[in-house]
């Protein structure tokens, strides 16, 4: 059984259709890279999977269970299993690094504060931020903020982690520190959907890569097949442009 299955997902922002029949199945522990031009719907898939944008058509199944996006309870359950890291980090500006990581497990999930604190400190140590616990987001660099965002997502103990262009807002020298963290997670067997323009990174960590255009998956396959020998002309155009830069 697949861990996550999207079947003919369609989604729109107002009258603009952004996803037009996305079908994708992800196995447990698999890392799928989502690539494609801006506006192709990559990030929208992640928004659908976190219930931020309910799909207009199609189904999402998690471990064989169909998600009813019209039911608040079902969406809450979905969000207990899937966590997302946003491109702009989206850290809570009014909270310290430690509070950002602890707030949801403690206040929303009602877990023991001391236990969560120990986990949060361990996760922040794992992403190399042990010395920043009391700092606020605006006192951190972009790379540090993004690593806090990753720790915050992990503290929710998700079964699936969604990463939305997490290096796009970072200076090149900060990209490596974030990607190291993701490599570590991939090695630990975390199921992940990664939207990224870092082709080298996508090739390295992904088990499969999906190329999207105009809200559709144009091509799906192993990284080498998609990035080196794409079958579709659109994939070829995109990949050759990206790799040239």
């Amino acid at each position: 059984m697949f861990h996550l299955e999207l079947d003919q997902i369609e989604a729109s922002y107002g009258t603009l259709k952004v996803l037009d029949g996305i079908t994708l199945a992800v196995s447990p522990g698999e890392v799928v890279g989502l690539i494609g031009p801006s506006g192709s719907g990559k990030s929208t898939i992640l928004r659908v999977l976190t219930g931020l944008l309910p799909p207009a058509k199609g189904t999402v199944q998690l471990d064989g269970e169909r998600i009813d996006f019209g039911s608040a309870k079902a969406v809450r359950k979905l969000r207990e299993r899937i966590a997302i890291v946003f491109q702009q980090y989206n850290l809570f500006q009014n909270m310290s690094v430690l509070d950002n990581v602890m707030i949801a497990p403690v206040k929303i999930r009602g877990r023991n504060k001391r236990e969560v604190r120990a986990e949060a400190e361990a996760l922040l140590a794992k992403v190399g931020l042990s010395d920043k616990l009391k700092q606020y987001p605006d006192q951190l660099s972009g790379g540090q903020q993004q690593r806090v965002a990753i720790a915050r997502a992990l503290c929710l103990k998700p079964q699936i982690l969604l990463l939305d262009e997490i290096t796009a807002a970072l200076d090149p020298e900060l990209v490596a520190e974030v990607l190291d963290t993701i490599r570590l997670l991939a090695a630990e067997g975390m199921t992940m959907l990664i939207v990224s323009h870092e082709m080298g990174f996508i090739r390295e960590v992904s088990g499969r890569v999906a190329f999207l255009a105009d809200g559709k998956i144009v091509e799906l396959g192993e990284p080498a097949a998609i990035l080196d020998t794409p079958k579709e002309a659109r994939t070829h155009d995109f990949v050759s442009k990206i790799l040239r830069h």
Partner: protein
Amino acid sequence: MDRILSELPEFFSYYNVIFLLKAAGTTIALSAIGCIFGGLIGAGIAVARLTTGWVSLPLRILAIAYTEVFRRVPFLVTLMLVFFAFQFSGFRVSTFTVGCVTVLLIASAFLAEIVRAGLQSVHANQWDAASAMNFGLMRTIRYVILPQAWKVILPPAFGFFILFIKDTALASYINVAELTYAGKVLNNKGFAAGLTFGTILLIYFAISYPLARLGAHLERRLVPSRTRSD
């Protein structure tokens, strides 16, 4: 000046002082009801405007209609409308109650807009992050949005409170015995206008100045000022 000085002992007679203090109490009560309960109702209306989906659409329309109407109608007109609405409906209520209902209507509409603007000033990505972590509307506002919105809400809210204390003077039109009404009464009794309204001015100042200080204090406490340390 000589007249004012000669009137001073009589003006500050025991009964006049009690009369002025009671009037000040009424002004404070009207203002407090407007600011505190108006603030709470206004916050509720602001949150209602932030709801999404079809189910809460009537609530949103109602909230928008309420704020748009009562922010546009002058205080005096609202006061008269409430006054005659109570008369028409046959409810026998005191003019103070009419004043209270009016201040609630006006203050809640204005404060709803101030709170809404504050809540919406917080970047959409904060709402997204909270939603994705299952915060729900109320907990998102409590833990994430409101702490960041204070800096936008507090200055205009306290500016409004101070304006509003002065607006409660209009309740004197329906004979609510608040400060301005007390001033008119004492002036009609023959006390010099300068003395009477000068005293009223000082009392208004004594009421509104601590409020302004409270606003500044809350701003300092609730809006952390941090600078980058690296």
